[in-house]
């Protein structure tokens, strides 16, 4: 008969836990955290409604057109619908971070995972991963909807699909990382939402309207411009690599700032 482990044995054992194990547990907890609030489901439903709804409508439109497109790939609809739908996914991400500050939930979160870098990385990974996968799946659903409603006008070539869905996933993931960083940096839902919309949508749209070269240049280095180029491809003077660089630069820089605030400041004052 073996002796039952005492509390002390168990604690000594606990001390030997590797950082990887602590991180894996933090990720599991973040996953549960994400899916046990209604906001996640609502935003996901909104993104799905936009992407599948617009996809299906576009298919009907194409089918009913007097000069219907012949043999165009349906994938085009995935990136077009991803442009508005990404904001639902970004809001989902942002709220998952800032609601902890609005409700005070960051206090128990840090009591349970006091190693803040681990909490940050786990949250960032779960949120960017989840939204990227959701973006790709909804992109697929959107193209399938258009393909189905326009049958047999639109094609669905699978090798194109991988590239398109990869692009959608990348844009959503980069935006989500930016949103995570903004959430941890600003700790405030309204403030961070405004910042996301300014950087991802309003400034890239507005700045080029004034006709100054420096404003155009400024707009070109905003993350929203990079996202728009990758999804819609209608930005003069931009290349895929410059768009990717701009998006990654913003996502990396802002999340670094958010990590610094989380690890340096008091929990929620």
């Amino acid at each position, binding site marked *: 008969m073996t002796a039952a482990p005492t509390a002390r044995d168990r604690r000594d054992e*606990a001390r030997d836990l590797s950082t990887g194990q602590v991180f894996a547990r933090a990720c599991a907890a973040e996953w549960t955290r994400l899916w046990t609030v209604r906001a996640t489901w609502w935003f996901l439903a909104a993104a799905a409604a936009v992407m599948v709804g617009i996809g299906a409508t576009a298919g009907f439109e194409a089918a009913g057109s007097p000069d219907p497109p012949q043999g165009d790939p349906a994938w085009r609809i995935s990136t077009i619908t991803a442009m508005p739908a990404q904001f639902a996914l970004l809001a989902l991400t942002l709220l998952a971070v800032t*609601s902890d500050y*609005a409700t005070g939930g960051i206090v128990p979160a840090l009591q349970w995972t*006091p*190693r803040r870098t681990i909490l940050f990385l786990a949250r960032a990974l779960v949120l960017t991963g989840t939204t990227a996968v959701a973006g790709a799946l909804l992109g697929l659903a959107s193209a399938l909807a258009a393909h189905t409603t326009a049958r047999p006008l639109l094609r669905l070539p699978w090798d194109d699909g991988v590239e398109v869905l990869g692009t959608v996933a990348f844009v959503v993931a980069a935006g989500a990382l930016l949103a995570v960083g903004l959430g941890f940096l600003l700790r405030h839902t309204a403030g961070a939402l405004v910042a996301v919309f300014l950087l991802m949508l309003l400034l890239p749209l507005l700045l080029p309207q004034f006709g100054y070269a420096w404003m155009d240049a400024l707009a070109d280095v905003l993350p929203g411009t990079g996202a728009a180029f990758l999804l819609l491809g209608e930005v003069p003077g931009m290349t895929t690599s410059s768009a990717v660089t701009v998006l990654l630069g913003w996502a990396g820089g802002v999340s670094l700032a958010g990590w610094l605030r989380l690890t340096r400041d*008091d929990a929620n004052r």
Partner: protein
Amino acid sequence: MGRRVIQVRGLTKRYGDVLAVDDLSFDVEPGKVTGFLGPNGAGKSTTMRMMLGLDRPTSGTVLVNGRPFTALAEPLREVGALLDPGSVHAGRTGRSHLRVAARTNGVPERRIDEVVEQVGLGSAAGRRIRGYSLGMRQRLGIAAALLGDPRVLLFDEPMNGLDLDGIRWIRGLLRQLADQDRTVLVSSHLLSEMQQTADRLVVIGRGRLIADATTAEILGGLGRLQVRVRSSRSEELLARLRERGLTAERVDTHELRVEESTAEEVGEVANEGHLPLHHLSEAQQSLEHAYLALTGDDVEYHGRPAEPTPTRTEVAR
């Protein structure tokens, strides 16, 4: 000297010009309930937040089992803590809240049912926290603190919002945890409550340590005896007591209060003058008075009644 499970050394926290905690040092030992006592704004919560690594000390250290809390891989298995019970996402169910906690520290799911049962949350665990009363939130917070079966427990004002049944339950729980040789630190501004619950008291005011001793020592050291005496000839008795050099005053038509004396002494004085006594009793000064004597100059907010700290639950999310 007992084992020092929690060691606070020179702990200081400054917010701008305000010193919330000022060079605080004390130890907390296992096997007893240590009361952490002070008026609102004394720095109790800030101290506990620093113990848990939530706030960064301006200077000084806190060690739990010889290590800083932030170094723990499985904090729930070593230190259970309840701070503000309103600091939870109210959109989750109580059980989901506990499930997240369990995941972070590898606590098995069945343990959730055990603590839900233990704190008496019952079927409410399946409901959203939004609909919980403050007392239910306290119970949920205590359930989370107990989840990892930790040897150290920190409770910040756990009696707030509880009804009489709940308060009696908490008292029993604290005693039971201490009897299991766990280390229990409970903050409160409810002096009468600590008098009943705590074996040891750490008293602070304006962030400074005022007293650190057993409850009996603190009561004994400051708990001067008072004598209440009733006599139909109280006027004569009052004169004789004053002749003796005692501080006595009239509190009612026939009733006197004598400071720092004993029933024997007052009885003898009455006997010497052949004065009839209708009542003679000793009363120990309550901790309340002792506490006010200790913290007299240190009450941060004079004139503000001691009230439970409001929770931050109802903010927009």
